């Protein structure tokens, strides 16, 4: 039995293990690896041209940076368009109804229509408290309307 590393190394050297390769295997494998190498070279040509050329690397990096920049710019602008302005203004059902109604008026006839609608509201309903509900406004409006339509 061995005592230390040197003993073991000497013992291994005395074993005369047969590691003589087979010439046919060696030749066949040589052909196979050269064939595999040429196949991998064809497959790798496109990607290699990108990764090995500094100029193409730079161009690819620039394209990626521009694409990312455009994405964020576009995303930012679309977010601005889609943000509903009424959401920040309307906080109660009454307010929401009023804002919707004013927006509808604006779409029909612009600022002039909005002013006309405001004048009409003040004329018909008179001054109202800030906290009045939409239901109360509609009821008041209907009463006023019925009274005006009476002969």
């Amino acid at each position, binding site marked *: 039995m061995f005592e230390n590393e040197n003993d073991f*190394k000497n013992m*291994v050297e005395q*074993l005369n293990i047969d*590691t003589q*390769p087979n010439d046919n*295997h060696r030749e066949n494998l040589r052909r196979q690896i050269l064939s595999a*190498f040429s196949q991998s*070279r064809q497959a790798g040509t496109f990607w290699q041209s990108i990764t090995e050329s500094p100029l193409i690397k730079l161009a690819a990096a620039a394209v990626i940076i521009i694409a990312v920049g455009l994405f964020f710019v576009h995303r930012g602008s679309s977010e601005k368009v889609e943000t509903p302005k009424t959401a920040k203004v309307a906080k109660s059902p009454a307010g929401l109804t009023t804002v919707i109604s004013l927006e509808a008026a604006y779409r029909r006839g612009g600022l002039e229509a909005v002013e006309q609608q405001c004048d009409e509201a003040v004329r018909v309903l008179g001054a109202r408290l800030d906290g009045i509900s939409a239901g109360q406004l509609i009821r008041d409006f209907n009463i006023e309307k019925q009274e005006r339509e009476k002969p």
Partner: protein
Amino acid sequence: MAKIDNRTDIDDLVLRARTDADALGWLYELYYERIFSFCVHRLFSKETAEDVTSAVFLAVAAKIRTFTGRTEEDFRNWLYAIAAKNANAYIRKTSRRNELLRQAAGSMTDAVDCADEASGLDWPTLYRAISKLKPKHQTILTLRFFESLRIEDIAEITNTKDATVRVTLHRILKTLRDNLQSVSD
């Protein structure tokens, strides 16, 4: 073929082999026997060693373009790392390991020619004792005592520190002594 034995020439071959089939062919000729020998020592059977050697060099042919080493030493260590991985992958299957051990046991009867006269130890017996070690320990032992690699190279191949390899080798030999005792009994 002209003889290539200058270290600088081999470094040049390593650099050229990424794009040049002839350079890869030269490296193959330089390292075929060493890798085959490593596989025989790890797998006992020459037929199995041929299969694994084939897998190693085919992997090299497929990956050589992405190899980042620049010297012969880098290439040799990379090659041994692939060989060790393939050998371990082969014997990971219990059925294959049992088959290798069966072959080793069958060879014990006619192993007198390759026995060390002083110790009486023969290769099949030693292989059976080595087979009881962890796969990584088998790799370290084979690289150190059968392939005569330096501790630094073994550390790089097995992706560990030099000091760890030294300590591990010490423990491996101790375990191997016990394994040999049990195999002999």
